[in-house]
């Protein structure tokens, strides 16, 4: 038997172009390290921290551009418009201070196999687009999650915040704060002057191996005011369309069973936001 141990090789690029080239060549991007450090840690890694282009949150019109290295703590502190409140809540309720202080949005998206990532369902409900480190335009987050293109570096996340839209996020844990969610729900709704939902984007995390939008729940919300009852009905519709995973923290049937209640909490938060 041959046992091969490969030490990690760290690269510290001095430009974004150099980082993009290294990642395209197979090196793993290193942001806050909270996911990678729980794995084998071997192979080439690209230390991104020194690249100014990956930091910060900028607003251009109705679009907000979040640098890939924005931490959960930074996202939790940021003054978001009501349309993006789900992102603030997901960041604030994820994990606990020691992890939120270093874990990044780019890492949350880039961590393959991380079913419980909290920012991902929030960003899906916000129709987020990713700027990858290539010459192309921004790509939908949902498409990125489905394909996980090898060698692509997430540079920034774009989300739109039109007036009149509100969003909310809620998560369910087995114990108190700090645990991974067994189910998380993010929803963003547009409502008319009478309060009737005219458009809805809903995403569920932690239930299937990868967070995803739930068209059944979106259809269930449109055409009526956003109430506890409509949210629960949407949760039931989502549960019927999902294939919940069994894992040591919760069986699949339980993840589905709690969804209506988590939908109700997320909807209440969206309804609280000023329009």
């Amino acid at each position, binding site marked *: 038997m041959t046992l091969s141990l490969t030490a*990690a090789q*760290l690269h*510290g690029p001095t430009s974004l172009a150099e980082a993009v080239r290294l990642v395209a060549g197979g090196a793993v991007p*290193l942001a*806050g*390290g*909270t996911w*990678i*450090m*729980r794995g084998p*840690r071997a192979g080439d*890694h690209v*230390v991104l*921290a020194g690249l100014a282009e990956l930091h910060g949150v900028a607003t251009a019109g109705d679009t907000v551009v979040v640098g890939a290295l924005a931490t959960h*703590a930074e996202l939790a502190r940021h003054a978001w418009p009501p349309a993006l409140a789900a992102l603030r809540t997901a960041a604030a309720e994820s*994990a*606990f*201070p*020691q*992890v939120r*202080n*270093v874990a990044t949005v780019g890492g949350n998206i880039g961590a393959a196999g991380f079913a419980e990532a909290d920012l991902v369902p929030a960003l899906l409900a916000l129709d987020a687009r990713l700027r990858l480190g290539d010459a192309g335009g921004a790509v939908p987050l949902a498409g990125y999650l489905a394909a996980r293109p090898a060698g692509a570096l997430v540079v920034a996340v774009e989300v739109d915040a039109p007036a009149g839209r509100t969003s909310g996020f809620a998560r369910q844990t087995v114990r*108190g*704060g*700090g645990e991974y969610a067994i189910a998380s729900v993010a929803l963003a709704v547009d409502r008319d002057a009478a309060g009737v939902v005219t458009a809805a984007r809903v995403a569920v995390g932690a239930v299937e191996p990868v967070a995803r939008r739930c068209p059944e729940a979106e259809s269930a919300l449109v055409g009526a005011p956003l109430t506890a009852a409509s949210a629960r009905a949407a949760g039931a519709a989502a549960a019927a369309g999902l294939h919940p995973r069994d894992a040591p923290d919760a069986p699949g049937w339980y993840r589905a069973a709690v969804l209506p209640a988590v939908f109700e909490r997320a909807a209440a938060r969206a309804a609280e936001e000023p329009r």
Partner: protein
Amino acid sequence: MTPLLDVLRDRLGLRGAKAGCGEGRCGACTVRLGDRTVASCLLPTVLATEPVTTVEGIAPPDGPLHPVQDALLEHGGVQCGACIPGMVVSICTLLESDPDPDEATVRAGLTGNICRCTGYQKIVEAALAAAGKDQP
């Protein structure tokens, strides 16, 4: 990649931060990086580019304890002690950013520090007392 915790304990002889779960969940390895707490078991040393404060740096080696440490002793917040270095760093950092926290804020600030002895109540009381909120 070497975690900061290994450098602190094995290279620098600073054994205050503890190797607990190794997954950044228990908080026994909590240290301060700049003005924020981190789980040093999950922090690649290459990312430790700001000053690091461990529990050894909270009070001078031969000087009086920090008020947070005194409060933990006075309120019976220290039992086996495994979690205490991380608790001290978390509480001190919390009180620097919010000198007047309520109980909910203290509890939220300690969600990343697990204690298997005290049930937390005495630790929370100690943190509030250190903030000048001694309860009758």
